[in-house]
Structure formats: C-alpha cells, structure tokens
C-alpha cells in the first residue's frame, strides 16, 4: 500500500473506527488509542486494505484489538459526556433536566447488551442507514432490525 492510499484509508475511516470503539467502551481516550494502534499496525505490517471494499475487515480488526486489550477488564459504561440533544434548547432553566435526561440515556444504553447498543449508536448516534450498519458489522439487515427493536424497547421502558 502506498502512502497516499494509506492516507486515504485513514481519512475515510479513522473517525468511524474510533467512534465504534467508543460505543463499546464509552472511553474516548481508549477508543482513540485503539484506532491509532490499528492503523499503525496496518501500515507496519503492510496490509492490503481497500478503503471502499474492506469496511467490515477494519471493524473486525478493531474489534479484535479491543477485545484483546479489554480481556480482563470490566468497564463501567458512561455515555453522558457525549450525549447531545437536538431541537431542544439548552436554556439555563432546563439544564438540570437535561443532565437528568443524559444520565437516564446513559444508564439505559449501558444496560443494553453490547451488540444492541453498538447497533443503536451506529444508527441514532451516527445516522447510518441499516444497510450501512449491516455492511460494517458483517451481519444481515434483519439482524440490524432485530437489534434496533431491542434497543428501542429498552429505551421506552426506561425513559417513559
């Protein structure tokens, strides 16, 4: 892989990969580190990765790196720092309410099974279409739908 090709790969996917790791651990530093390790590895081992066709491969490798790093660790998940609300003005008198809502969302997401949570975040958190999610995670669209339903059920139960 030439340097130019590698830069293209990096520019296209670096943020997406570190976001994906973030969805799994709610730790932005760790997510950045793992993403950086992944791309370093790709460069140093001279792997042939196509920036258009090998999306699922990238996600898989990132997942493997994440798992091997986190093998013995139990993480406490807290997404409050990254949750933002659209269409709702965060005026001063609503701030406490917002904080409470953030906390509720974070707790609810933390409770979700990992695969459900990651799928939900790729969809609502990042705006990906179901078929795009299916391609990256290497699963079928039906599976994506199933996980989304699960996520929404949990959210409804916790937030309403």
């Amino acid at each position, binding site marked *: 892989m030439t*340097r130019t090709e590698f830069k293209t790969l990096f520019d296209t996917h670096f943020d997406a990969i570190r976001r994906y790791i973030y969805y799994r651990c709610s730790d932005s530093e760790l997510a*950045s580190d793992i993403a950086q390790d992944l791309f370093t590895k790709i460069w140093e081992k001279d792997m042939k990765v196509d920036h258009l066709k090998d999306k699922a491969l990238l996600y898989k490798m990132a997942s493997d790196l994440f798992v091997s790093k986190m093998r013995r660790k139990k993480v406490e998940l807290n997404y409050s720092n990254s949750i933002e609300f659209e269409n709702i003005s965060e005026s001063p008198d609503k701030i406490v309410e917002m904080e409470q809502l953030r906390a509720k969302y974070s707790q609810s997401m933390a409770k979700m099974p990992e695969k459900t949570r990651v799928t939900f975040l790729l969809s609502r958190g990042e705006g990906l279409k179901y078929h795009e999610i299916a391609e990256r995670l290497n699963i079928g669209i039906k599976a994506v739908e199933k996980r989304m339903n699960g996520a929404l059920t949990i959210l409804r139960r916790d937030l309403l």
Partner: protein
Amino acid sequence: MKEDIKINPKWSKSKEEIWSEHFETLTSKESEPLVSTVRFGRYMRYLSAAAIVLIFLIPAIYTRSLVTKKGEHLSFNLPDGSMVSLNAESKMTYKPLIWWVNRAVKMDGEAYFEVKRGAKFSVSTENGVVKVLGTKFNVFSRGEIFSVSCISGRVEVRSDGVVVLENNKRAFLGSDGKLIVEQVQEIEKIISWRTDLFYFTETPLEDVIDEISRQYNIDIEYSDINSYIYTGNFSKESSIETVLEIVTLPFGLKPEKSQKGYKIVR
C-alpha cells in the same frame, strides 16, 4: 424525544492532529523497497535470537552417559583429568560441553572418584549430593542405601542433613534416614572392588549376595535371609560357587544351581 439524541464523544485530539503527530513521520520514513527490508530484518532478528538460544541451550543439555552392566568395571577420564571408576551395574552422566563451567555428575550405583584440584565438583544421587574440591572418595548409592567414603581430601555430603568428611571417614544413611558419620579403619577395603576384591563388614547377607550377583553377572535367588549379617571377603578370582559357599556356610545355607543361575537354600 428519543429520536433527537446525537452522540459526540469529546476527543482530546482531532483526526488531523493524530495524523500529523504520529502518522506523518511514521509513513515518511518508509518507501516501497524499504518495506521488504523491514520484514527481512524481522526474520533475521528472530533467526539470530533462535541461534543464540541454541548456542547456549545445546551445551547445557548435551549429556554423556557411562553405564556398566553386571560383571563390568569401567574406568574413565573426565575432561579436566579427574578419574572415575564405575563398579558393576552403575550409571553416571555428565555434560562435557559445560564441564569447564560446572563439574557436576549424576550417578546411581557405585563409583570411585579421583578429582583434580579445581572448581567445585559435585556428584548427585537419588539419596544425596556429594561436593568436593580435590580429593579421592567412593560413592555408593543403590536403592535406599547411601554411603560416601573419603579416602583423602575433604568431601561435603548433603542428604537429610549436611556433613563434611575428611580422610578415613564415611557417611551413610541410618535407619531414620539421617546421615551418620563414622571413622573407618581400613578405608582401602571400601574401594577394593576396583581390584576385584570385595570386603564386607557387618553387611546384611542380602546385600552381599546382590554384590556377588552383580560382579559375576549371574542371577541369584534367595528368600528370607534379612536377619543374617556377614563379615568377610571374596576375590573375583574365585569361582562363583566357591564364593557363594564361603558366604552362606556360616548360616547353614548353601547355593543350589537353578535354571537362571543359583538359589540359596537351607
């Protein structure tokens, strides 16, 4: 409401910052041809690491064995000029390639050593370890019987307990398994086996018969003779029948020819 959330992690560094800080230099160092040298360099590093391990490992592992069968005696010179004499049915091993670093032998059976002065010399047996500096000594280790006799020099014997022997002293395992030291009057008798003369002082008849069997390489059966204690000697010049008769006579026993060799009967 739930449709309106967005997830925006707070990154400490932007994607561009990470590129310029880490990947910019990482990628500028390498160009196409260099990539294959990196891989080659890696192979070479593994190879040389493996080679170094082998260079140290092989001498540490390579072991030479000396074995005597029944009826055999063997004399042998170790790399530093020290001499070993093995009695029948004995085994000794040592590592020739690291002899200069560590003079250590393992043995089972009976052996007489004349050790040249030098670094520590050790003899390991299942019953204990003998350490010497430059000396003449005999080691007997068969089954549970362990006896070390110092002819000259100094010898350290380590088993259940540690003792140091000087000339004419012998250490052996008592019935409680601990080392006992005794003075020996005619220490040459202990190593007379080297000249095919065998002396026994207050030795259980069993052990005497075993030694005869070992020296003549003939099977000898016996039963129930533990309680007999023998003091005497025999020379391998005599026939085995003569020797067996001499040894069993005091106890009202006699040897009888059997299919495999001999049997001791009343």
